[in-house]
């Protein structure tokens, strides 16, 4: 379980904190969705959750980040690497740059952690299979398209088998098929007990896999609750977050002053 207790974080040299008094809980087997306008603090929250902030990113953190009840402050980045994994939106910077093949790229993380060779191979095979990219195993990662590289980056994260996964807009560059594959992989991992934090603009995707959702605005967690409730919350649009298609449609229908019979037909079709 990953816990934030009143976390305030300010990047080095910034005049304002990027996160303010954020408290949240990411439980085992749960997918927690993170929504908010660009620059509301989603990426920063992901960096703090993974430990990269303040360790590599610098800056100051007040409040506490707890991993299974233990304060993470004294832990070094490499101690966290096996327990919390993170994936970013842009694949190019996530590739190690030293792997000649996709296989080596996916194996990079567990290799660093000194995982025994047999297990290393098993994990890599599994990660490739989870995202259905076995056919790419012998390809040079640098020659792949952006979407393929993103799948490779996420596979690299899966190979670490962390108990907690943090993903910052992982499907931004993916086509609908790739997006679906990632969503399915995440749902499967949560079903096996992983805790997953995923920041996304695609609220329809989140509606499909998240049990709870947190909405950020100006660095504060302003909404936190069950996914269905938060996604239907009218305040979401004011926060710059597009609601899922069904919610948007219902709202538009209500605003359009349609007669009750028409509304009922719509409702029936949405429910079916």
């Amino acid at each position, binding site marked *: 379980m990953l816990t934030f207790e009143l976390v305030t974080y300010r990047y080095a040299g910034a005049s304002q904190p990027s996160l303010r008094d954020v408290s949240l809980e990411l439980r085992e087997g749960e997918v927690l969705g993170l929504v908010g306008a660009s620059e509301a603090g989603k990426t920063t929250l992901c960096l703090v959750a993974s430990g990269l902030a303040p360790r590599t990113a610098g800056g100051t953190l007040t409040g506490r980040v707890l991993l299974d009840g233990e304060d993470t402050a004294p832990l070094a980045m490499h101690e966290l690497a096996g327990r919390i994994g993170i994936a970013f939106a842009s694949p190019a910077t996530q590739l190690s740059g030293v792997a000649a093949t996709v296989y080596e790229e996916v194996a990079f993380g567990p*290799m660093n952690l000194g995982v025994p060779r047999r297990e290393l191979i098993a994990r890599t095979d599994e990660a490739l299979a989870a995202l259905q990219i076995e056919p790419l195993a012998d390809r040079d990662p640098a020659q792949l398209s952006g979407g393929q590289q993103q799948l490779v980056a996420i596979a690299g994260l899966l190979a670490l088998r962390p108990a907690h996964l943090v993903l910052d807009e992982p499907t931004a560059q993916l086509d609908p098929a790739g997006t679906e594959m990632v969503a399915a992989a995440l749902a499967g991992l949560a079903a096996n007990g992983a805790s997953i934090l995923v920041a996304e603009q695609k609220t329809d995707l989140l509606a499909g896999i998240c049990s709870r959702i947190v909405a950020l605005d100006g660095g504060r967690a302003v909404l936190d609750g069950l996914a269905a409730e938060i996604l239907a919350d009218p305040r979401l649009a004011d926060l710059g977050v597009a609601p899922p298609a069904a919610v948007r449609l219902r709202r538009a229908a209500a605003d359009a002053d349609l007669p009750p019979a028409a509304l009922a037909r719509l409702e029936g079709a949405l429910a079916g």
Partner: protein
Amino acid sequence: MGVGGVIGPALLIGAGVVAPALAAGLLPRVARTATLMSLPLGISALLVNLFLLPGATEVLFRIGPLTATVEGLRFAVEILLRILAITGAITLFYLTTAPAALVLDLERRGVSPRVAFVALASVQTVPAMVERAVTITAAQRARGLDTEGSIWRRLRGVLPLAGPVLLGSIAEVEERTMALEARGFTRPGSRTLLWWPPDSTLQRLARWLLVLAVPLVIVARALGWLGWLG
């Protein structure tokens, strides 16, 4: 006088460069590259010694004020062979060794993974930068940057082309560092290797023999043996 004959270097080239190159199917490439590499030094050695060797007397031919000598020619050939032996060996080495294989082998023998990473990443940096530069060039051309006009126009294009290549690379550094650290890169100690170049007993023996041969040959020459090698 003389640096010492042709038999020694000829044997070295034959056994140490030509034979392995033939076995690896690389003889044409090794020959071409080694020759090209030897050209600058080789040409100057040839000219200097052919015409200007001190104490040489047997005349080969004359061109204007310059006199080519037989001793000079022999000396030049001796030097050329030695140069070819060196360039042949270097060429053979880099044509038969993948950088990754070399670096991973060093890592297996105890070099820090972080050092290995830097060595490997620097090899990959060039193609990655080239690919980036190609995309950037396309993007800027799409904005009307003229890459096909006069030299002045093309010079003006340097900043819009070099700018994103450099800026983009620098801007990426922080994110790349974070991605590496998040994947356990900074963990002290060694890491598990997926593969490394195989090393047989025969290869190990050959390596030791080669290493021992150096001091032995030096001593032998100092003692005056091996004179027949030249």
